[in-house]
Each structure stands twice: as structure tokens, then as C-alpha cells.
């Protein structure tokens, strides 16, 4: 009942299950202020959506979810166009290489392993750091200390000595163009492989390493995410034929509604409590994926090329 057939995933799924997953991730993204793409792909994989379709459709969903936010930030003047375009160019290069890597890994038969392994690493790292940082903040707040502010870092000083120095007006910094380009390429590559927008890597990098103001970092990140994931969506559709537009739109509906509730729930919880909760969710998903890689599979034989439409 209430099943819906996804033409590219080539399978029938419960409409409310997908809406629920979208809603849950949207709720968390509203609550925690992150894009949530890094949670959406593994959750879809868990319900049986082929990994390649899950990642590609997630990219498509991020295009939709990010576009309204990007436009709003642009109007408020929170987008550093020069920085955004540099990261975007890097993202397009990285995303294009990433899509080819997906194709190669799928043909090799190890795409599922690769995507799960990368997720275990990323989720483990992000979840672990977040958990420890939140615990520390909780402890400090109990002891009555105020949290330390980040200022100019050793990294940002290092980049001022690299060639191709450019002044980024909106961000109010001068740095080498090579670094944002490299970060853009790495995140673009991950976007193709994992179906993530990369906000959870990009925003902290822009704030702590490049040294940008938080609001401009968020606005610029959203701006480049829309274009990077649009490029990935286009490439995935052309090369791997794995974008399920129906799936993306259902997820969008769920995530948008969920995000509204998430944003309201933020007012009732303290920042560090929210972050500990997110860290626990991230670590739980990481453990589930890790167990999948470690335990003897029920069937030693699997399709080399997973995904619909073939």
C-alpha cells in the first residue's frame, strides 16, 4: 500500500518510508544546520536503493534543497562570488573525475565496498570529532568557561605565502587561489562518489582554514554546492544513468517539511546537546556500515554493476 515505482532505481518503495527518510534528514539538517546529504545516501542504501542510484539522486535532491537557500544568501550579500567561482571550478573538475571514478569502480565490482569504506571513514571522522568537541564544550559550560574563538590559523598564514595571491573582497581576506580550488576539487570528487554536498567539510574548512567569516562561508558554500551538485547530477545522468528524479523529488518534499520542524526544535535544545545527538546518529550509521564490511556476507556473489535502467 502507498507504494511507488521508481523508474531508474527500478524498484517499488513505500512512499511514506522515503518521505520519512527525507523528513528525518531534513529535520536533522534544520536542527543541526548541516545539509544532511551525508546521512541521506547511507539511509537509502540501507533500505535497498542501489548505492549508485542513491548517491546520484541525492545529488539531484541537494540541487533542489540548496537552490532556495543560495538565492536567499545571494540577496543578503553573503556570497563571495570570486571565492565561490574558484571553489566551483575546482568542484566541477573534481566532480567530473569523481563520476568517472564511479564508473570505473562499478565496472570493477567494488563500488559498494568503496562507497561504504569512504562513508565509514568520513562518518567516523566527523562523528568522532563532533562528539569529542561537544563533550568538551558541555564540560566547559558546566565549569563556567567561555568557548575559545578561532582567529587566524597557521594554515591561513601558510596560504598567504603561496603563489597566485588574490584578494577576496566579500570574505575580506587575501590568499592563494590554489587552496580553494584544491578544496573544491576534493569536495566535488566526494560529491560524485558519496552523493553529498560537502557542506560538512567545506564550511569548517572555509572558516577555520581559509579564515572566512561564518555567514559568508555558509552563503558561498551554498552557492557553489548548487552548481557542483548540478554538474554531478548532469554527469551521473550522462555517464551512469543513475539519477532517479522521482526519488529526488520525494526526498525533497520530506526534507523540506522535516527541516521546518528541525529549525523549530533548535530553540528547545542547547547547541552542544544538539551536536552530541548528531554525533551519535552519525556514529551509529558508521558502525552499521562498518559491520556490513566486516561480517561474512549472506551471498558471496553480487552484481558488479548495481543500479537501474540497464
Amino acid at each position, binding site marked *: 500500500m502507498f507504494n511507488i515505482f521508481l523508474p531508474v532505481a527500478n524498484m517499488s518503495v513505500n512512499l511514506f518510508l522515503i518521505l520519512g527518510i527525507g523528513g528525518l534528514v531534513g529535520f536533522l*539538517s534544520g536542527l543541526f544546520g548541516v545539509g544532511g546529504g551525508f546521512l541521506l545516501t547511507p539511509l537509502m542504501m540501507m533500505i535497498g536503493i542501489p548505492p549508485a542510484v542513491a548517491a546520484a539522486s541525492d545529488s539531484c535532491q541537494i540541487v533542489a534543497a540548496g*537552490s532556495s537557500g543560495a538565492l536567499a544568501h545571494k540577496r543578503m550579500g553573503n556570497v563571495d562570488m570570486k571565492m565561490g567561482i574558484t571553489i566551483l571550478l575546482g568542484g566541477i573538475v573534481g566532480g567530473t573525475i569523481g563520476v568517472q571514478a564511479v564508473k570505473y569502480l562499478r565496472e570493477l565490482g567494488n563500488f559498494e565496498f568503496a562507497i561504504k569504506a569512504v562513508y565509514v571513514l568520513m562518518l567516523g571522522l566527523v562523528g568522532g570529532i563532533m562528539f569529542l568537541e561537544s563533550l568538551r564544550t558541555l564540560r566547559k559550560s558546566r565549569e563556567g568557561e567561555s568557548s575559545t574563538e578561532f582567529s587566524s590559523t597557521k594554515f591561513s598564514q601558510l596560504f598567504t605565502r603561496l603563489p597566485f595571491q588574490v584578494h577576496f573582497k566579500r570574505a575580506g581576506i587575501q590568499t592563494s587561489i590554489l587552496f580553494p580550488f584544491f578544496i573544491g576539487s576534493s569536495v566535488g570528487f566526494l560529491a560524485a562518489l558519496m552523493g553529498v554536498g560537502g557542506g560538512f567539510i567545506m564550511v569548517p574548512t572555509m572558516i577555520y582554514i581559509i579564515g572566512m567569516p561564518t555567514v559568508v562561508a555558509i552563503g558561498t558554500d551554498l552557492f557553489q554546492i548548487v552548481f557542483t551538485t548540478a554538474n554531478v547530477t548532469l554527469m551521473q545522468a550522462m555517464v551512469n544513468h543513475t539519477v532517479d528524479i522521482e526519488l529526488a523529488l520525494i526526498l525533497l518534499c520530506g526534507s523540506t517539511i522535516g527541516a521546518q520542524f528541525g529549525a523549530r526544535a533548535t530553540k528547545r535544545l542547547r547547541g552542544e546537546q544538539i551536536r552530541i545527538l548528531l554525533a551519535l546518529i552519525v556514529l551509529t550509521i558508521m558502525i552499521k556500515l562498518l559491520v556490513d564490511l566486516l561480517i561474512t556476507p549472506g551471498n558471496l556473489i553480487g552484481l558488479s554493476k548495481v543500479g537501474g535502467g540497464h
Partner: protein
Amino acid sequence: MKRLIIISLVLASILSMSLSIKAKELGEKEFVTVSTKEQINIDLRYSGDRIYFFGTVPEKGADVVVKLISSATEHTKLTQKGKVGLFWMGTKQYEISNIPFMYKIHSSGKLNSILTTTLAKELGIGYEILKGNMELKLVKGEAPEERDIVFDGFVKMKEKDNLYRIAEQRIKITQERVFQHYFTFPQKAKEGTYKIISYVIKGGKLLAMSNDTVVIQKVGMEGWLTRMARNYGLAYGIMAVIVAVSAGLLVGLIFKGGGH
């Protein structure tokens, strides 16, 4: 008794409605089968389908074996997982072909008591026959080829999706003449033609056979999107981006700035 009346009524009504009736005579024996449907449309609400088959056995005491086989065959790459260090990952890759995409057998009794080995081979009934026909090529990894492991894993995968099944004693023959059963076409049954061949067998000999055909096709939006995604990747990709941006902006308008 009540069940027999229902079956007879259904059978009579289907016959009178002139649904497709395919019969083939072998010698003196006439064997008729009918199905409730000849076409399955995959649309937005599709989640698999079930088709009933009815028939009359030409000779008392005979057994019935029905084979469902897809016209489409598999030509695909399979990965065999092995343990590398602590992790399970692909260690060998095979290319397999000449094996049906969907294969199901229903019978009125135990297959080994109905069929001789020769007849089973002649009619293509049983997994052993499929295994023998399957073409296997090791494309990555070290020899030897492990045909049994690959075939068993492949069948396990297919059975999980309900695309392969051998169900003995599934067909009930009432008063030694009328039989009925159904085949489930799972959600993963793809577009194409599926043949349903019913055999009447007695004393290890084939008495009669009859063919039915079911066609599965994607229709409406599902069909259009599938063909677009498969054949016009660039156009589909551009459309996906435009739809996503429009939907995002629309949602942003509704919720005044979007949720992200």
C-alpha cells in the same frame, strides 16, 4: 466442493470471455490453458503483479509441470567476494550469459518422480539444466573458475528478488482434470516477453503442452522517464537539474526561504 465450483465458474467465464486460449495438440491429446492477463503495465503504483493460469488435463492421473521463462537473458558481470585482510570485498569477477532473467517452475508433484533426466533436459526444467547451459568467463581475479559457487550465488540473488523459484507440488489438480495456479511477477520483473509453457506428463512421457505469453511494459511517466534516462542522458540530466532548481525555488517560496 465449493472450491471446485468456484474454479469451474472462473474457468467457464474466462473461456466464454474469449481470453487468449492457446492449445497445442500432441497426438490425440488436446490441452487447453488460459490466463487472467496477457499484459502487465508498470506505472507509478506498480509493485508487482499476479497472474492466474487455468487448464484441463487431457488424461486422468497425469501430472502438470509449468515453466515460466523470460525471453530476456542475462549478460552481466558478477563479483565474487573474498576476505582481504579484515574486509569482505570483490576478489573475482565473472561474465555470465545464456541464462534467463526470470525462471520459475511449478509442478503438481515432485519433479524427480514426474520427469526422467532426459525429459528434464529436453524441456529445460531444473536448475541443473540452467547451470549446464550458463556460459561463464572469469574476467578478473585468479583461476580457478568456481562455477558452482557462482551459479548458487546467482540463484540465491534471483530467489531473493523472487525472479527464480522452483515450487514442487504447487499445482493442485482437482478431480484429476482441472488445475489452477498463479505466478507472481515481482516488482523487479523488467520489461519484455515472458513465456509460460505448461506440460502434461504421465509415466515419464510428455503427453501435451501449451504456451501462454505475458508482456511486461512500462507505461506513462515511468516508461517515459526510463527511456529518457537510458537513451537521452544529457537531456534527462538537464531536465533533472531544471526540475530540481524549480522545485527548490518553489519550496523556498512556500516556506519563505527554504529549510536549508
